[in-house]
């Protein structure tokens, strides 16, 4: 309390230098706010719902998702998210958690893909099954090390494409991901933009998703996070589950490999 008062007084007395101090205390208060929300992260409700959806027989085939293979064998969930995206021989594609859940809902449960992906993210008054399922699957990697070495030739190719997209400037503003996310301590107003090109930076970003976004009052998956960043870069918005998104994920997860997941997370 006292420190805050000083910051305010200083801000008044020393103009610019003081403003920096006041901004520092604003950041502290926002950190406190997030800490208070992390106690009982609303994402945990979605996690519980996702677990229910995972285990319940659903769809035309009336089966659960418990035989879904997320890369570690049918039904093996612990640590699976931390090792995605990866190459799947059955589809001959590199897939992330979300593409794989959709794949399982279609192939195991018999849903139509367009029905499953129609509500791929939630809006007020409209829940998303995928969001819940992915939050649950992500949570089963809580505490696991991200491990995406991208050794399979297809994975290596996707990592390369992801890296290329990350640095390539395009669109009306000539933006690239690297312009916003390539430096330490870069900010837009008070938002810190992660430096995604180092292991620690990529780890701090990737390891917390799916994440409850305080500013949105909703949980976002990595697909949604990246699609929205492409919008921010003023690029054409890719389709949900597009290869370009998966490629970026491979690149970022590869960079983040070795860091420990803490999910579901809480973000601005």
């Amino acid at each position, binding site marked *: 309390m006292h420190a805050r008062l000083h910051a305010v007084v200083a801000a008044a007395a020393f103009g610019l230098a003081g403003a920096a101090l006041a901004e520092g205390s604003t950041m502290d208060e926002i950190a406190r706010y997030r800490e208070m929300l992390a*106690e009982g992260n609303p994402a945990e*409700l979605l996690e519980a*719902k996702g677990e229910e959806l995972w285990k319940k027989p659903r769809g035309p085939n009336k089966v659960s998702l418990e035989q879904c293979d997320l890369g570690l064998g049918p039904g093996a969930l612990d640590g699976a998210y931390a090792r995605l995206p990866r190459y799947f021989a059955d589809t001959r594609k590199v897939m992330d958690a979300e593409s794989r859940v959709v794949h399982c809902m279609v192939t195991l449960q018999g849903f139509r893909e367009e029905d499953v992906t129609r509500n791929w993210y939630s809006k007020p*008054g409209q829940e998303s099954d995928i969001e819940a399922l992915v939050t649950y699957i992500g949570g089963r990697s809580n505490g696991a090390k991200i491990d995406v070495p991208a050794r399979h030739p297809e994975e290596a190719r996707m990592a390369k494409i992801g890296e290329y997209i990350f640095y390539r400037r395009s669109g009306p503003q000539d933006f690239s991901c690297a312009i916003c996310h390539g430096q330490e301590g870069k900010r837009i107003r008070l938002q810190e933009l992660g430096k995604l090109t180092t292991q620690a930076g990529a780890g701090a970003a990737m390891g917390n998703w799916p994440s409850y976004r305080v500013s949105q009052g909703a949980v976002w998956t990595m697909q949604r996070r990246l699609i929205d960043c492409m919008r921010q870069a003023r690029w054409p918005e890719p389709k949900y589950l597009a290869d370009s998104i998966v490629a970026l994920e491979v690149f970022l997860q590869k960079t983040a490999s070795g860091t420990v997941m803490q999910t579901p997370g809480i973000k601005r």
Partner: protein
Amino acid sequence: MADPMKIRASAKDGITEVKVLMSHEMETGQRKDSSGNLVPAHFITEVSAEHNGRQVLAAQFGTAVSKNPYLAFKFKGGAKGDKLSVSWVDSKGDKRTDEVQIA
């Protein structure tokens, strides 16, 4: 049917700490849907927590409690393995009860 709550209850030094997340939209009655119509108010009005059948907290909510309400409190007593249940009822009469064992 309403989605499950997430309840954590842990006993330490004779005090039980309870943290509850309830799954509910908590519609204020002020929000408009995509076609511009007001979404009617729909919110949890009452909550009750019981330890082995004895009430340890009662709450009344208005529409200003956040979506997916969170509630944390502590009470004296409670031992590992005891039952702790939380119930709510909302403005449409929907209700839900969940129970956990104190950890």
